[in-house]
């Protein structure tokens, strides 16, 4: 049955290619549907027109899907554009909610750039995949043996199998790593290869990644999103699961531990939140159950690597690094690195820690190696190389250079040692003079260049508003060492070019990605990363292993959330009063509320114009402006942005739900651009929604977080901020009572969410003493000042302390004193107004408490959170020499 009859619709695509167009959604394969209404038919018509001379992943010929794509194509035919669009909207929301990001250097969206994922997967048949698996495992074994040789006897160089330039001129060959022992003879623990399909349909390898390959975590996240968006097609395709691969990765890393073999501590070393793939580091750490660390979290003592935790130093057995090796040790490697761990190399040499991949493993990433891989494979394994690399010429050999000069048209020139950071140059795109320049440069230093055949990439369909579009695709595949072989992830991270004609496939350049589905012949095995039920495991309650840096972030997360909540609560009351004022009634308490708000967010002016010198419209505009203000740092938007930033740094610490809540907080603010449309009512509604969002965060942390030190620091942050907020509020509204105090007391009760409790207790009139009792001294009210201080006193008593000192710490003494002060105070005395119309005792009390809380915050920071300053290099010393 043919699906190729071009309809009038298709001819509107206009190009010469239209005749090759295939209407995937022609319903002839599902006759029951042909009778449906015309509209529905148009909706279902998904056309896809790949170029004729390019291998397309999905279509073998116009309108003829390859066999392994058939289930997905059948399913697509059953859906319409509208349904696909709806599904994909869902998928995109999932990406946003999960906070999948990729940092693009120099992108204005910076750390919040959402991950680009296409709705449709790349499908690979199980038969082809088993060939791919064997070939990649073989390649990884060869590269591992090459690494072991280069950092050991270097026989391959002496035997003429590898040009010495590729080692000695290669900046990625790290001499200090020469001679380190490789447990189990493995240097290459995690391997990645980029595959492209040649025009004859065979795969070839276009790049090897042997240093700290990225992408496996994104592949997993892609899988989660796409399998949820297209569950029926996912089931029908019998897609092989990824979990087993990560299980092997975890087992391999565990097996590397030289000590604590039962329960080794494995950390994932990240360069930090500004790295392009930080999301993935946090994601993988959480998924694999490793501790996410930055270099400053680790320290070397007695040639052992330790993690700095709240409870002291904890030994580290295995480091999975996502930091390039040259940056890993500022003592023995790059001295300008501030990301590494001084002394790490010595710990490795002393066999006290294992780093995966082994330090120095980047040396075999050079594209020049591809020219020698077939003979290396034969020499080292006695086998033919199973999957070819893209044809590569290393210019350091005269014959190769001659070939390159003659055939430059069809070649791409690349630096052999990409550390120098040169871009690939397409021979076909060069003018005569540019060509001469290039050849002169190559001839001057031939060993620094390689030439590769310009790769013809295959295309795969991507989904966009218009339907399906062909895009060039590259597949990144992953392997992990297991015993003396490698296990290959069934699938991978497919990356697609940004536009139809582009051959540049790069996430850094804004390209997209795809899930990759590898079919299975038998039933799909479902495994999870949870341990088998029978396996013995050492019981632990954890808590003190929290690193100081993480505790610091949790502390500030608690503070930011509570600070935002305070701001929103006042704003809500202010907005409601402004609405009243607009309707003509007199609202005297507005001034004190605005002053409290300004005090809370550290705003000197702007919000509260001088008394008597403002009109309603001015004030309204000031408040609405404030909603979207980027300054001061304590204003609402920057505070929420800070909370979200911490959330993204703490991805490995907080639950997915918590992260989703955090990620959506800023969405409640009016858009930055269209402020003019924001009315008081709209703003009020947004603040109500925001209060709920913040409450959701607090609720999740109360109900979901184990009461470990992480939770404690979050709560300490929250209590400190709430106490400071209450103190500001009292100072602005109660110290100098106005003529009509009742109204500002009512506003105070409203702001603190205590109005109902007050009314239940006192029914009628609002008076200072009972208000103070409720908001100041009532230990049962979670919004009272005493409640915050008591919680703080309880927290500091339970913080870990060095050597179990018997004496009370400064923070304990501060908290106890503040609590006693609060408990001793009588609300009636505090409410008494002195001769000058001021509540003097209240003012003194608030000033003292303010100092106490700030002292508490400072001492906790000093004792537990301040990063003991990061290490730095001693200045080297100049040679004087004799003249």
């Amino acid at each position, binding site marked *: 049955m043919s699906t190729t009859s071009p309809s009038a619709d298709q001819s509107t695509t206009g190009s010469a290619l239209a005749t090759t167009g295939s209407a995937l959604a022609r319903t002839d394969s599902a006759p029951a549907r042909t009778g449906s209404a015309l509209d529905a038919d148009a909706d279902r018509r998904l056309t896809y027109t790949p170029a004729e001379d390019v291998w397309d992943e999905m279509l073998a010929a116009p309108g003829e899907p390859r066999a392994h794509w058939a289930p997905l194509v059948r399913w697509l035919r059953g859906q319409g554009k509208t349904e696909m669009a709806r599904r994909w909207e869902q998928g995109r929301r999932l990406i946003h909610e999960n906070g999948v990001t990729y940092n693009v250097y120099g992108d204005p969206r910076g750390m919040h750039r959402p991950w680009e994922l296409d709705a449709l997967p790349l499908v690979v048949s199980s038969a082809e995949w088993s060939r791919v698996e064997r070939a990649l495992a073989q390649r990884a074994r060869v590269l591992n043996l090459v690494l072991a040789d280069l950092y050991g006897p*270097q026989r391959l*160089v002496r035997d003429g199998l590898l040009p010495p330039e590729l080692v000695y001129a290669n900046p990625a060959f790290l001499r200090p790593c020469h001679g380190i022992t490789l447990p189990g003879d493995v240097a290459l623990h995690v391997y990645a290869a980029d595959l492209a399909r040649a025009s004859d349909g065979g795969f070839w390898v276009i790049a090897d990644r042997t240093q700290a390959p990225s992408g496996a975590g994104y592949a997993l996240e892609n899988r989660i999103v796409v399998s949820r968006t297209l569950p029926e097609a996912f089931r029908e395709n019998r897609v092989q699961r990824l979990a087993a691969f990560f299980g092997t990765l975890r087992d391999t890393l565990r097996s590397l531990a030289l000590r604590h073999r039962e329960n080794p501590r494995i950390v994932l070393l990240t360069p930090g939140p500004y790295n392009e793939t930080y999301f993935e580091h946090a994601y993988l750490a959480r998924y694999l159950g490793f501790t996410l660390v930055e270099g400053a979290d680790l320290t070397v*003592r007695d*040639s052992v690597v330790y993690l700095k935790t709240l409870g002291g130093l904890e030994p580290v057995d295995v480091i999975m690094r996502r930091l390039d090796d040259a940056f890993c040790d500022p003592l023995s490697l790059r001295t300008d690195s501030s990301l590494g761990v001084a002394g790490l190399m010595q710990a490795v040499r002393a066999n006290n820690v294992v780093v995966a991949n082994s330090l120095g493993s980047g040396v075999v990433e050079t594209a020049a190696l591809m020219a020698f891989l077939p003979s290396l494979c034969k020499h080292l394994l006695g086998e033919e190389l199973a999957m070819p690399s893209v044809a590569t010429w290393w210019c350091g050999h005269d014959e190769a250079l001659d070939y390159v000069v003659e055939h430059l048209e069809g070649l791409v020139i690349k630096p052999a040692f990409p550390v120098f950071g040169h871009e690939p140059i397409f021979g076909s795109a060069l003018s005569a003079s540019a060509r001469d320049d290039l050849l002169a440069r190559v001839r001057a230093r031939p060993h620094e260049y390689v030439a590769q055949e310009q790769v013809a990439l295959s295309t795969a369909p991507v989904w966009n508003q218009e339907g399906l579009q062909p895009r060039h695709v590259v597949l990144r595949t992953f392997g992990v060492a297991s015993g003396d072989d490698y296990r290959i992830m069934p699938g991978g991270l497919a990356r697609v070019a940004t536009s139809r004609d582009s051959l540049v496939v790069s996430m850094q350049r804004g390209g997209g990605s795809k899930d990759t589905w590898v079919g299975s012949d038998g039933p799909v095995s479902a495994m999870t990363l949870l341990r088998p039920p029978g396996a013995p495991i050492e019981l632990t309650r954890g808590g003190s292993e929290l690193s100081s840096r993480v505790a610091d972030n949790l502390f500030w997360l608690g503070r930011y959330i509570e600070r935002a909540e305070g701001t929103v609560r006042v704003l809500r009351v202010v907005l409601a009063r402004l609405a009243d004022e607009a309707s003509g009634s007199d609202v005297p308490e507005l001034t004190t509320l605005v002053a409290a708000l300004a005090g809370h967010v550290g705003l000197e002016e702007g919000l509260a114009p001088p008394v008597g010198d403002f009109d309603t419209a001015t004030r309204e505009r000031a408040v609405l402006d404030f909603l979207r203000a980027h300054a001061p740092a304590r204003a609402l938007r920057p505070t929420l942005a800070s909370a979200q930033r911490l959330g993204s740094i703490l991805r490995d610490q907080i639950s997915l739900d918590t992260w989703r809540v955090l990620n959506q907080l800023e969405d409640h603010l009016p858009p930055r651009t269209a402020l003019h449309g924001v009315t008081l009512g709209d703003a009020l509604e947004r603040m109500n929604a925001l209060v709920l969002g913040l409450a959701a965060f607090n609720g999740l942390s109360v109900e979901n977080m184990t009461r470990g030190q992480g939770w404690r620091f979050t709560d300490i942050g929250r209590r400190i901020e709430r106490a400071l907020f209450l103190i500001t509020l009292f100072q602005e509204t109660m110290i100098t009572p106005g003529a009509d105090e009742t109204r500002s007391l009512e506003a105070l009760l409203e702001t603190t969410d205590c109005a109902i409790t007050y009314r239940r207790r006192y029914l009628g009139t609002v008076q200072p003493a009972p208000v103070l009792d409720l908001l100041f001294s009532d230990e049962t009210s979670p919004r009272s000042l005493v409640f915050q201080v008591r919680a703080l006193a309880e927290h500091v008593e339970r913080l870990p302390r060095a050597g179990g000192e018997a004496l009370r710490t400064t923070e304990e003494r501060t908290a106890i004193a503040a609590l006693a002060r609060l408990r001793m105070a009588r609300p009636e005395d505090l409410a008494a107004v002195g001769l000058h119309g001021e509540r003097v005792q209240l003012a003194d009390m608030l000033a003292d408490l303010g100092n106490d809380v700030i002292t508490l915050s400072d001492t906790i920071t000093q004792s537990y959170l301040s990063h*003991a300053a990061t290490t730095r290099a001693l200045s080297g010393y100049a*040679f*004087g*020499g004799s003249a």
Partner: protein
Amino acid sequence: MNYRVRHMTRYIYTHPVAIAHNEVRLTPRNGGVQQARRTQLAIDPAPSVLSQQQDFFGNTIHFFTLQAPHHEMTVTAVSDVTLWSEVPAKPADTTPWEQVRTALSQDLTATGLDAFQFVFESPYVRWDEDTVAYAAPSFPAGRPILEGALDLTRRIHADFKYSPGTTSVATPVHEVLKDRRGVCQDFTHLQLACLRSLGLAARYVSGYVLNLRTKPSDKSGDKPADKAETKAPARMAGADASHAWLAVYDPATGWTDLDPTNNTIPSDQHVTVAWGRDYGDVSPVKGVILGGGTHSIAVAVEVLPVS
């Protein structure tokens, strides 16, 4: 000649240092005309961890860690070394430089490969057209390599001003070439860049030189040996630091040392401690500290002839 070398390095910090990891290359190499009889390394305060190993170039490294808070650290190496003078290769008898270049890329013996690694750019030795142009007059076609190298040494000595304090360890070669001034490691990096830009193998050598003020031509006539013990750690001009020079490779005659700072072929007055591609591979004392505030350094080197 027998020498006793005393090399003292002291770091003084304004704030306590919690932990310090250090890597030092202070043990003279053994071999050739030099016999390093022994080196005593004294570290104050005493380190918690001390280990010794050879680096990729065969230099001796000591690693040590100070784990107790300290306000200053002193590292003193005292080495006893014997140097024999050797008649250097006759420059005219050495291999024409183009032949050296060709031979280097084809020699897969251990010696050949070891030399070949010193042909390439390294972090502190990079070159451009200006470097190539500066080197060219010394290397006309067919000139024996050592003749060319010596001529280059002489030109650098003549063209460049010895000017302490105007450059740092990180001053790039092209800047030295432009400003025509520097100290020993600048001249060494420059000559390395010139030689390597021609495809020749040349390595950086760090070590000590006998204080040249003891030579009769020196006007002061002050013999530092007499006062050395009492003056330390005060700095003495001319002998207060490590020295640097280079060596160039000829497959026929092996490595020959060249000192562009003094326009000499080093023989029995240069004590070799370590060699590598450039300063970065051989820096005598490296450290990474936690804490410390700001710090100052005092260095004292004495090379004393002993009988």
